[in-house]
């Protein structure tokens, strides 16, 4: 109760002040980036790696501070970011399709209109891998087996309602096949089960299998063009299967950010993709970069929401 009251009061005061005071000197105090995961997680490392570069491109002695608000797969943090004052001093990290899927499969105190979309920075495409023990070492063999015995192939992946799950649903719809989902808690346990041959097939992300290419059959990458992360892996489109999907991480601000602040931030983010030092730092921490700015990011989010909503209406996963 107190909280809501206080927040409205602050938000109101901020809105009044925003137009006049913030225009010139932004940023004049540290910018806080709320990360919905613990320190050391993939999203946290992305935020911390990007922070000095954002400072550099914002100029004027800007300082970016990462604040971890872990819990509920990032939902607690993103809710806090959505409800913060839209003054440009509180930003948040944003994960797709997870953050949108949570508004569908669970009660969430935000929706797709709660944010000012700044930039998506990471796009980690899905890959389909099979266990060496399964003998299904090409996409054709996999699909043949899946058609012959619907449901016989077990698919290890991280939890339902995530990017892996949507990739599988796209695969099933595109090929008219049926698989048995085995949702592990996270990708690393799923990958381990694949390495041990306990499940036949897995849907993971390219950064998660890059180090394990010798121990697994990687059948293809769900991108339009080959990923720079593993250029020798063919895409699914090359193999005649229209499957593009991935896990995305970016930055958002609360809705209602003043235009000049938004412009300034988007400007800074858009320079990231041209910075070789930044690209190297991201590659070293398993974050394939694909920068999508502003309205395009918003459109991307909206599309993913519609996809998730459609899936939920036909086959709810919980």
């Amino acid at each position, binding site marked *: 109760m*107190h*909280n809501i009251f*206080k927040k409205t009061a*602050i938000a109101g005061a901020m809105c009044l002040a925003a137009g006049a005071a913030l225009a010139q000197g932004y940023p004049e105090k540290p910018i806080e980036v709320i990360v919905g995961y613990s320190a050391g997680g993939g999203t946290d490392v992305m935020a911390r790696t990007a922070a000095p570069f954002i400072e550099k491109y914002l100029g004027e002695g800007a300082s970016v501070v990462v604040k971890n608000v872990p819990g509920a797969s990032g939902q607690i943090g993103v809710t806090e970011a959505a409800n913060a004052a839209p003054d440009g001093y509180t930003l948040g990290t944003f994960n797709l399709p997870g953050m949108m899927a949570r508004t569908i499969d669970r009660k969430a105190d935000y929706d797709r209109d709660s944010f000012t979309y700044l930039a998506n920075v990471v796009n980690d495409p899905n890959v389909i891998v099979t266990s060496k023990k399964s003998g299904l070492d090409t996409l054709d063999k996999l699909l043949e087996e899946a058609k012959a015995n619907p449901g016989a192939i077990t698919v290890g992946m991280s939890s339902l309602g995530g990017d892996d799950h949507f990739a599988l649903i796209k695969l099933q719809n595109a090929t008219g096949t049926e698989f048995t989902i085995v949702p592990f808690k996270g990708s690393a346990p799923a990958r381990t089960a694949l390495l041990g041959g306990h499940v036949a097939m897995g849907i993971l992300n390219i950064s998660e299998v890059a180090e394990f290419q010798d121990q697994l059959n990687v059948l293809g990458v769900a991108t339009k063009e080959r990923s720079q992360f593993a250029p020798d892996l063919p895409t699914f489109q090359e193999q005649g299967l229209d499957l593009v999907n991935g896990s995305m991480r970016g930055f958002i601000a609360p809705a209602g950010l003043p235009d000049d602040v938004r412009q300034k931030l988007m400007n800074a983010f858009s320079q990231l993709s041209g910075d070789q030092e930044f690209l190297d730092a991201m590659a070293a921490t398993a974050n394939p970069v694909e920068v999508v700015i502003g309205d395009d990011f918003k459109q991307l989010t909206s599309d993913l929401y519609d996809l998730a909503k459609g899936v939920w209406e036909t086959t709810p996963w919980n």
Partner: protein
Amino acid sequence: MPESRKSRLTRPETLTALGIIVVAAGFLVPTSDLRAISALLPAVMLIGLIVLSSLLLLADQRRAGEGVPATPMTQSPKRVIGAFLLIVAYALATDFIGFYVSTAVTIPLVAWIFGYRSPLGLLIATVIVVGTIWAIFDFGMSQDFPTGRLLGR
């Protein structure tokens, strides 16, 4: 001499067993909304708690019937309740008026109420504890403690 009906029901174990049964039964209600496989383990555990607590209740009542007096949970209930309330108050104070203020008040207050009353000792202890926490967590590790919801940031 058998105990009166009222004191038979207020034996600590009897009360606890009744409490567990009521709470476990309460938790059983939401299991009906879950899918069967999802509800299985929690429901089994809750039913287990109810059955076991009933056994506990029966055993305790049998002892009561035999006239075995119940061992009291504490010799000084006032002190126990007071201590617990103080700890809760400390948590609430941290939440609403901030960590450092509450801590600086709570340490001497608790120690004083429960019998350690040397002013110098209290002062030194408070300064050392609060100072060390500040130096390590705030200064060293830039951990933010609650600053108090009432005071804003």
